[in-house]
C-alpha cells in the first residue's frame, strides 16, 4: 500500500490496475490447509473419545498454535512390536486420523504412541495425493520402535546423556536406526507437519521458501539456499594506528566522491565544527566560553585535543549512556510511573561502563546474560538486568527481537510470524534464537524485578529446550537453540548449558556485533549510516560504502571494541569536518531524497530531544554536566513527554519530537524554556544585561550561545531596533527566545 491512502478503495484498485498487484489463485493452498485442519480436528475428537480424559495440551503448550505438530508417521510395519492400540474401539479411518494427533500422543505412553505411528502410515497413504512428503526419522530405544525425531524434527526420545554429536551422526542429521537405515526409509507424506531441517541444515536456515502450497522436504536439490543469518567472526586484523584509520576514511571517501562525480563541500568553520563535535560527543552545544576558547586556539592539533578531551569527559559517558539506553529499552522504557524497569539504574550502569572503557563485546555479553535484581538495595543487585526486564515479552519474543536488533543489526521480529521475505530469513531463525532465552525467568516483587535462570523443560516439558511455532499455513514446527555454525546443546537444563551465555558467546564472536555498532556510531555522527535504517542490515539492505564499514568494523574489533577510538576516527575524519552547505557540485549527494549518502557534506538534522535538553541547560548558563538527582528526574520528565510506547510486539515507539505542534509549543512556552529565558536575578540574561559589555557584544554573546556564530548585519540592525524601543533586558530576552526557537538552534549543522 502507498503511504498516504487518501482513498483506500481507489488506491487499492489503482495498485491492482497500475501496479499489477493482482489477487493470487489460492485454491490449492486453501484446500490443502483445509484438509490438514480437518484431519487435525477429527483426530483430536477421536483421541479424546479414546482416552476418555481429553487430549491434554494442544500443540505447543501455550504458544497459540493451531496445529500440534506431533504426528508420527512411519513406514508400515515399523510398529509391529508396539503395545496394543488404545484406540481400537474406533473406526479404522478415525484411527488413522487419530494417529496424526500431536500433543496428546506426545504425552501418552510409548505403547500408544507406537500404535499411533502405525496408523499414521495408513493415513498418509490415503492422503498421499493431497500432500507433500515429510521425511521420517526414526530410531529405537530399549528395543521399542520409538521416534528419535518426529517429522517436525523433534527428538523426544534422545537419551539426555547422549552428546549432541550423536544426533549429528549422518550428514543429513538423522541418527541411523538399526531397523530402518535412513537411506532406506521411504519418505512418508504428512499433510500436517512439515519436517524440520536436519541438524546440519538448521544453521543455514530453511532451505525453502515458506510460502504456501505443498511443502517440500528439506534438502532437495532445488531448494534455494537461505541467506546466512550472521556474518563470520571478524577476521584477525592488526590494530592500525589512529592516523592510519582516519587517513583510510578520508581516502576512501575521496574515491567515492570521484566515482560519483561530486565535489565535497568546503570545510566547516572552527565554530561550526566545534558545535557539532560537542553535540555528537558530549550531547550538548558548547558554552560561549568553550566555543571562544576553541576558536581562538591556534594549535594545529586543537581538533584532536578537543575530541580527546571530550571522549575522556563524564559528559561523553553520560551522553552515550543515554544513547545506549535508548537503543536497549527505547525512549519510553522505564518512563511510566511504577514501571518495574529502572531506567536511571540502567543509565548509571552504562555510564560507568563507558567511563571505564569497558569493551563493547563485554558490555553486550553482560547485558545478554544478566541475572539478579534491579533494586539497588538487593544483595544480588545488577542494573544490567533492566535490558531484558524491559524486553521480556510473552515467550521472550521481545527479548529475542531486541537482542537481534541491537547487537546484530537485524530486525528479526518479522520472522517471528513468517518467513522474512526480503531478507530470506526463515521463521526458524527467530525461534532458534528465542530458545536461548527460555531459561530466563523474570520475577517481580514490590515494584522491583529480578532475572533468574531456571531449567527450561521445553514447551513439551520433556527437558529439551524445544519451542514450537506456527507457520502461517497452520503447520507447527519445532525449534531448538541454534545460532551460527557450532551446534548447541538441546538440553534446557542449566546443569547442561546456560543458554543465554551460549548465545552471548556466539553473538560476541560474530562480525555483526562490530558492524552493527560501527554503523550505528557512523549514523550518530552523520545522520545516515551505511544502511538505512541502521538496525535492519542483511541481504535485503546492503551497506553503501561497504569497504569503509568493513574496515572500521574490523578495526573496532582489533582495538578491543573500544568505542572511544571509533568516535575519534569519525570525529577527526574529513567528512565530519565538511560544511553542511550544499554546493552545486554535490547536489547529487541527497540522502534526504532517498539517494545513498555520499558524505560529501555534513547533513543538517534536528537535534535529539536529549541534546536539546542538555543544550538548553548549557544555554541557560547551567554548569555543563552538573546534574543533581532532582534534575535527573526533571530531565526524564521533560523527555518523557515526547515519546510513547505503541505496545506492539516489536516494542515500537512514537515520538512527537518531530517538529510538530507539540514540540513547538513545548519549546516556545514550556517550563524549561521559561526558565532558560528568565530575566530573574542570577539568570544568564540578568548577568549578561548587567555586564559591562556593549549592547552589540551582548547580542553577539546570545548568538554565539545559541547558534555558535555572530549575528550578520541584518540581524544586528533588527537587534538594535529592539534595543532602542524596549528596555535592554526585555529586548535581550526577546532576541534570546527567538534564537532558541529558531531552526538554526535546533538543527545540528
Amino acid at each position, binding site marked *: 500500500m502507498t503511504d498516504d491512502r487518501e482513498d483506500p478503495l*481507489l488506491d487499492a484498485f*489503482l495498485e*491492482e490496475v497500475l501496479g499489477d498487484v493482482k489477487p493470487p489463485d*489460492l*485454491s490449492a493452498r*486453501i484446500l490443502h*490447509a483445509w484438509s490438514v485442519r480437518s484431519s487435525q*480436528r477429527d483426530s483430536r475428537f477421536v483421541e479424546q473419545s479414546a482416552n476418555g480424559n481429553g487430549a491434554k495440551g494442544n500443540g505447543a503448550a501455550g504458544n497459540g*498454535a493451531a496445529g500440534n505438530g506431533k504426528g508420527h508417521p512411519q513406514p508400515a510395519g515399523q510398529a509391529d512390536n508396539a503395545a496394543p492400540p488404545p484406540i481400537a474401539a474406533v473406526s479404522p479411518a478415525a484411527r488413522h486420523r487419530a494417529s496424526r494427533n500431536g500433543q496428546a500422543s506426545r504425552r501418552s505412553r510409548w505403547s500408544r504412541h507406537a500404535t499411533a505411528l502405525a496408523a499414521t502410515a495408513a493415513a498418509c497413504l490415503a492422503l498421499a495425493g493431497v500432500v507433500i512428503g515429510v521425511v521420517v526419522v526414526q530410531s529405537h530405544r530399549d528395543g521399542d520402535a520409538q521416534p528419535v525425531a518426529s517429522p517436525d524434527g523433534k527428538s523426544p526420545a534422545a537419551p539426555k546423556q547422549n552428546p549432541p554429536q550423536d544426533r549429528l551422526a549422518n550428514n543429513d542429521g538423522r541418527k541411523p536406526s538399526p531397523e530402518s537405515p535412513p537411506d532406506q526409509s521411504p519418505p512418508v507424506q504428512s499433510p500436517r507437519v512439515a519436517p524440520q531441517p536436519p541438524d546440519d541444515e538448521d544453521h543455514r536456515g530453511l532451505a525453502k521458501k515458506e510460502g504456501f502450497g505443498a511443502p517440500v522436504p528439506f534438502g532437495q536439490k532445488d531448494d534455494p539456499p537461505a541467506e546466512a543469518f550472521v556474518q563470520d567472526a571478524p577476521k584477525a586484523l592488526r590494530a592500525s594506528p589512529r592516523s592510519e584509520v582516519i587517513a583510510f576514511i578520508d581516502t576512501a571517501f575521496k574515491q567515492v566522491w570521484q566515482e560519483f562525480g561530486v565535489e565535497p563541500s568546503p570545510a566547516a568553520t572552527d565554530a561550526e565544527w566545534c558545535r557539532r563535535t560537542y553535540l555528537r560527543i558530549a550531547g550538548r552545544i558548547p558554552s560561549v566560553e568553550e566555543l571562544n576558547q576553541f576558536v581562538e586556539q591556534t594549535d594545529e592539533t586543537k581538533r584532536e585535543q578537543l575530541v580527546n578531551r571530550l571522549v575522556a569527559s563524564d559528559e561523553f559517558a553520560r551522553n552515550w549512556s543515554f544513547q545506549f539506553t535508548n537503543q536497549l529499552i527505547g525512549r519510553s522504557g522505564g518512563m511510566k510511573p511504577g514501571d518495574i524497569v529502572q531506567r536511571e539504574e540502567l543509565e548509571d550502569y552504562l555510564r560507568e561502563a563507558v567511563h571505564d572503557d569497558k569493551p563493547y563485546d563485554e558490555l553486550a555479553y553482560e547485558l545478554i546474560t544478566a541475572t539478579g535484581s534491579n533494586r539497588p538495595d538487593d544483595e544480588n543487585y545488577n542494573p544490567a538486568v533492566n535490558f531484558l526486564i524491559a524486553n521480556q515479552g510473552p515467550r521472550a519474543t521481545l527479548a529475542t527481537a531486541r537482542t537481534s536488533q541491537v547487537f546484530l543489526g537485524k530486525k528479526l521480529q518479522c520472522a517471528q510470524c513468517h518467513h522474512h521475505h526480503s531478507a530470506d530469513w526463515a521463521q526458524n531463525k527467530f525461534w532458534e534464537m528465542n530458545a536461548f532465552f527460555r531459561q530466563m525467568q523474570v520475577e517481580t516483587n514490590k515494584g522491583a524485578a529480578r532475572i533468574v535462570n531456571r531449567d527450561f523443560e521445553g514447551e513439551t516439558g520433556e527437558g529439551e529446550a524445544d519451542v514450537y511455532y506456527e507457520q502461517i499455513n497452520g503447520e507447527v514446527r519445532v525449534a531448538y537453540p541454534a545460532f551460527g555454525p557450532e551446534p548447541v546443546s538441546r538440553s534446557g537444563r542449566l546443569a547442561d548449558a546456560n543458554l543465554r551465555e551460549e548465545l552471548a558467546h556466539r553473538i560476541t564472536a560474530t562480525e555483526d556485533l562490530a558492524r552493527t555498532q560501527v554503523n550505528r556510531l557512523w549514523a550518530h555522527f552523520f545522520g545516515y549510516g551505511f544502511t538505512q535504517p541502521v538496525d535492519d542490515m542483511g541481504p535485503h539492505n546492503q551497506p553503501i560504502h561497504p569497504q569503509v564499514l568493513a574496515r572500521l568494523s574490523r578495526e573496532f574489533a582489533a582495538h578491543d571494541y573500544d568505542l572511544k577510538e571509533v568516535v575519534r576516527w569519525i570525529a577527526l575524519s574529513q567528512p565530519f569536518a565538511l560544511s553542511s552547505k550544499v554546493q552545486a557540485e554535490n547536489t547529487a549527494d541527497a540522502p534526504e531524497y532517498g539517494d545513498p549518502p555520499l558524505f560529501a557534506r555534513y547533513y543538517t538534522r534536528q537535534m535529539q530531544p536529549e541534546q536539546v535538553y542538555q543544550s538548553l541547560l548549557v544555554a541557560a548558563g547551567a554548569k555543563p554536566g552538573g546534574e543533581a538527582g532532582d534534575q535527573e528526574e526533571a530531565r526524564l520528565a521533560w523527555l518523557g513527554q515526547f515519546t510513547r510506547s505503541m505496545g*506492539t510486539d516489536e516494542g515500537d515507539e512514537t515520538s512527537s519530537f518531530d517538529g510538530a505542534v507539540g514540540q513547538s509549543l513545548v519549546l516556545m512556552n514550556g517550563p524549561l524554556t521559561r526558565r532558560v529565558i528568565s530575566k530573574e536575578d542570577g539568570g544568564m540574561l540578568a548577568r549578561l544585561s548587567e555586564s559591562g559589555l556593549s549592547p552589540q557584544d551582548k547580542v553577539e554573546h546570545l548568538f554565539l550561545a545559541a547558534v555558535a556564530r555572530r549575528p550578520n548585519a541584518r540581524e544586528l540592525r533588527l537587534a538594535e531596533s529592539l534595543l532602542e524601543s524596549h528596555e535592554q533586558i526585555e529586548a535581550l530576552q526577546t532576541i534570546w527566545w527567538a534564537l532558541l526557537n529558531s531552526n538554526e538552534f535546533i538543527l545540528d549543522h
Partner: protein
Amino acid sequence: MSTFFLPLRLEPSMTQGSTPPTTGLGPTGFDPARLIEQHQAGVWRYLRVLGCEPSLAEDLTQETFLLVLEKPFDDYNPAATAAYLRRVAHNLFITTRRRAGRVTTVEDVESLDSAWKEWSGDDNAETALAALRSCLEKLTDRARWALEMRFRDKLPRLEIATALEITEHGAKNLMQRAKQQLRQCVEKTMQ
C-alpha cells in the same frame, strides 16, 4: 514496520455478526473448490481495501475460507455467500489488528465496507476494475503519468514532483484531482 502476520486460530467469535446462508443447496451439493474459486478474488480485494498488504490479504483470505469451511455451509447464492465471506474476513481483519496492538477505527472500516459494496457488484469488482482502466485512458497524460509513478513505480511524492517539475504539494494536488476524476468516472460508468 515490516509486514506482520499473527498466527490465527479459528475462533467462533470471528464469525459473529455473520449468518451463513442456510437454504439452497444442501451439504451434499456444496463444492469447496468452486466456492473458493468463485469468491477468493473478491475477499482478497476487499481485504486490500481495508488496508491489508498483499501478503496479509492472502493470509486472511485463506483464513476466511478455512473458518467458513469449518461449519456446515450451504451456498445459497453468490451475493449472500459473498456477504458472509466478507463479514468473516472483516472480523478476521479486526482481530488481526487487535492482536498486533493496532487501533482500528470501526467507522472507517464500516465506511470502506459500504464503499466496497457499491463497487464490487456481483463479480468481485471486475466491472469496476474494467471501468477504472477505461477511465484512466481519459486522464491527461500528465495526471496518468503521476498515478503510474505512484502506483506502478511506487515512487514517493517528492520524486514524482521532481519528475513533473512541480512542487510536492503540486504533485499531491494533481494526484488528488486525478483520483477524484477517476472515482466520478467509474461511478458514472457503473450506473
